[in-house]
């Protein structure tokens, strides 16, 4: 009986997408011809509650995902880049309610799905300001592990398209983007919007406030925001620390999902 309940629950609980829209390296480099880079991000995501719609259906039943992201970029010229993003789940665990008020713990680990992107950028350089418009087709390749019913990877093909605008002055940075993803059945299509505002504290240090708005066609949506710190150690070595909190976390009304989350992410990138 119990395995059947667990299996049914696993089918009802959706897989939480952990993809994010930023592109390597730190979303801004390299803009020079022949430039390339690689970055590694360590990410910790913690969802506090199991929710359905706006309601918490299992308070204190949490999900914690720890993963590494390996990402790379090559810039042919300033207008054409190719990027890849490959996550590796070092450990994911979720607390699953079972009949009788107890809970059991499920785990997942292994490679996630590969994302390939082709950011096409139209740069403008003005007196005291620079920026770009971008159009980014993306492809999700289902490389993720399938160890059991609990899997962080979607394991389906997907196609995405982003429209973006960035501008920067000596003091401030602003970026916004709109992204749409569609996936093979049964995964829901997703849309997201982001607004980032940065302050260039020093030539090598930028403080940002980043906000993400995300929803899907199962009526789930999340509003998350938080600070980010970018530090350039040298021309080659760049680091970034980011924390995002879910200020609004509404799940789909048909499926239970883990929500009310926080995400912390520390990255180091090398460019050449």
């Amino acid at each position, binding site marked *: 009986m119990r395995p059947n309940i667990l299996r049914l629950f696993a089918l009802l609980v959706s897989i939480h997408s952990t993809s994010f829209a930023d592109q390597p390296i730190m979303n801004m480099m390299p803009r020079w011809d022949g430039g390339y880079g690689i970055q590694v991000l360590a990410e910790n995501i913690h969802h506090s509650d199991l929710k359905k719609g706006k309601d918490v259906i299992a308070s204190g039943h949490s999900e914690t995902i720890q993963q590494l992201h390996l990402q790379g970029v090559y810039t042919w010229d300033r207008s054409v880049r190719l990027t890849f993003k490959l996550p590796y789940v070092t450990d994911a665990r979720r607390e699953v309610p079972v009949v009788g008020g107890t809970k059991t713990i499920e785990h997942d680990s292994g490679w996630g799905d590969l994302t390939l992107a082709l950011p096409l950028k139209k740069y*403008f*350089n*003005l007196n005291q*300001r620079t920026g770009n418009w971008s159009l980014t087709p993306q492809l999700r390749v289902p490389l993720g592990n399938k160890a059991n019913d609990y899997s962080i990877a979607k394991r389906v093909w997907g196609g995405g398209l982003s429209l973006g605008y960035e501008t*920067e*002055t000596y003091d401030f940075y602003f970026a916004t983007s709109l992204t749409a993803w569609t996936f093979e059945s049964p995964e829901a299509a997703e849309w997201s919007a982001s607004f980032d505002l940065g302050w260039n504290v020093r030539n090598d240090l930028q403080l940002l406030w980043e906000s993400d708005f995300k929803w899907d066609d199962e009526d789930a*949506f999340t509003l998350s925001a938080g600070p980010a710190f970018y530090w350039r150690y040298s021309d080659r070595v760049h680091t970034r620390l980011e924390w995002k909190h879910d200020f609004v976390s509404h799940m789909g009304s048909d499926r239970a999902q883990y929500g009310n989350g926080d995400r912390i992410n520390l990255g180091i990138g090398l460019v050449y």
Partner: protein
Amino acid sequence: MNFKLKHLASFIAFGGISLLLAHSSYAAKVSPETRIVTATAQLENKPNLIAVYAKGFVCNSCGIGIRIHLSKIDSVDLTSFNRGVEMDPAQQLLFIAFKPGVEPDLEVIHRAIYDAGYEPDLYYRWTDSGLIVAPLPPLN
């Protein structure tokens, strides 16, 4: 749905305010005159240096490709500054050091900065008659 629209509207408002802040920040703190003052201070009596005003060069981190490209030019003196290049994003100026006695190829400099993602416009150089300011030669 109304709930979504309310949050989307607040996001758009936040984004609009952010954009206004970002755009308004480049008030006229920098002018051709301030660049001349900065360039003169750095270049005076140093004939092996030139300065270049590059449109859009406002950020050191994004501009590191300029150093990567310029430092590949044979005539650049890699022992000066940081691999031959000093960057001043506040004034959108680049200072480039050349090996003594070598005449810089301005078109090659133009190409290197352009390929790094920027639009070089003017160059500054100290001569016997003082500071000269002139457009860089166009790219072929």
